[in-house]
């Protein structure tokens, strides 16, 4: 009935006994293809939970190597991985968690030149970056190629999550039309990040991916969920498609990919 081995049925039994998921849902997970951009604070829980859940093909793109300062939150990497490419360290951990999945590793930076060919191989994209140039690049490319996107961001004790069904729900630019002025929003390296906040937000992103694949529940479309760890509160803000959105609006002005410069003020590539 389903293309699952006995070992897989046992492994995923706690999914399968959920009536909303069942064998059919688990089969969808096995057939799913998800691209995760970044193997850092957000990418770590995303990659680990998607691997554990049995998402059949997971791509991870990241050009950085593991640093000791990453280990306080980037739980897919361990002390012995310092100086290894993050994609390799992440792949090793994912394979240890679940040898049944396939992992595609791309040890490179995501650019306007490689993003479209990459997207062809995947159905859903997860944003786990910490720089605005790549964040807007991912949003615009997903809108143009009609790929579903699960956005996430973290800073200090806060996080945000938003799922995007390109062309159907509000995109990132519908809410944040342009990047903030250079130098105005600090990075985690400058402002700090409570490590577990990355776990909360990344785990919510993974949850959204699993819901979208299986069709369970209501994804965070047209909703922006903000998390405040200091008060331990979630605050949901309704969003809607902006008819004047420069990329998904009625008369888009962005019809080709823009790669905002990595100036001193807008951050080098990296992960939260």
């Amino acid at each position, binding site marked *: 009935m389903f293309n699952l081995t006995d070992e897989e049925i046992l492994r995923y039994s706690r999914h399968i006994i959920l009536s909303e998921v069942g064998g059919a849902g688990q089969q969808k997970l096995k057939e799913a293809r998800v691209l995760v951009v970044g193997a850092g604070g957000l990418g770590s829980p995303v990659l680990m939970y998607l691997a554990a859940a049995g998402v059949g093909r997971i791509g991870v793109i990241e050009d950085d190597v593991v640093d000791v300062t990453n280990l306080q939150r980037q739980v897919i990497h361990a002390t012995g991985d310092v100086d290894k490419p993050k994609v390799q360290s992440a792949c090793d951990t994912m394979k240890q968690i679940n040898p049944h999945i396939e992992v595609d590793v791309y040890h490179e930076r995501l650019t306007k030149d490689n993003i479209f060919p990459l997207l062809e191989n995947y159905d859903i994209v997860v944003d786990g970056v910490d*720089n605005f140039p790549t964040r807007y690049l991912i949003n615009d490319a997903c809108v143009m190629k009609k790929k579903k996107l699960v956005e996430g961001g973290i800073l200090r004790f806060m*996080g945000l999550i938003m799922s995007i069904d390109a062309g159907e729900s509000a995109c990132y630019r519908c809410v944040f039309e342009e990047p*903030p*002025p250079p130098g105005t929003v600090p990075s985690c390296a*400058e402002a700090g990040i409570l490590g577990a906040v990355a776990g909360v937000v990344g785990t919510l992103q993974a949850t959204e991916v699993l819901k979208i694949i299986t069709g369970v529940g209501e994804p965070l479309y047209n909703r922006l969920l903000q998390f405040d760890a200091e008060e331990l509160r979630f605050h949901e803000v309704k969003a809607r498609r*902006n008819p004047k959105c420069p990329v998904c609006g009625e008369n888009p002005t962005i019809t080709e990919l823009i790669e905002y410069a990595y100036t*001193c003020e807008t951050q080098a590539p*990296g*992960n939260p």
Partner: protein
Amino acid sequence: MGCCSQSSGKDGEMLSSDKVTNEEISCLNLVVQGKPLQYRGSADVRSLLESRGENPMYVNVRINDEVLGHRDFEHISLHDGDSIDFLYYMGGGTCLTLQMKKSSGIRGI
């Protein structure tokens, strides 16, 4: 109208005579981040943000059903009963990271 009205300085501050401006101070019943708030200050979004300790450069703002453009907060008026949400930019950085890397040899972010 709002909960009170008088002429004074910005952000509810009671100003001495040499600081008094002609700026209109309003007192509005708002809903900010889902919570009721009696706001006393200049009836524009930038003043509200500053009174709440929010850096206008870090956030976008949604009033009722409208998400505002990012940089014109001082020109957007507040009205009694408005529901305001702050939408925080998260996920960027500045040159300090690069400086740290250069000076300390730190790799990665």
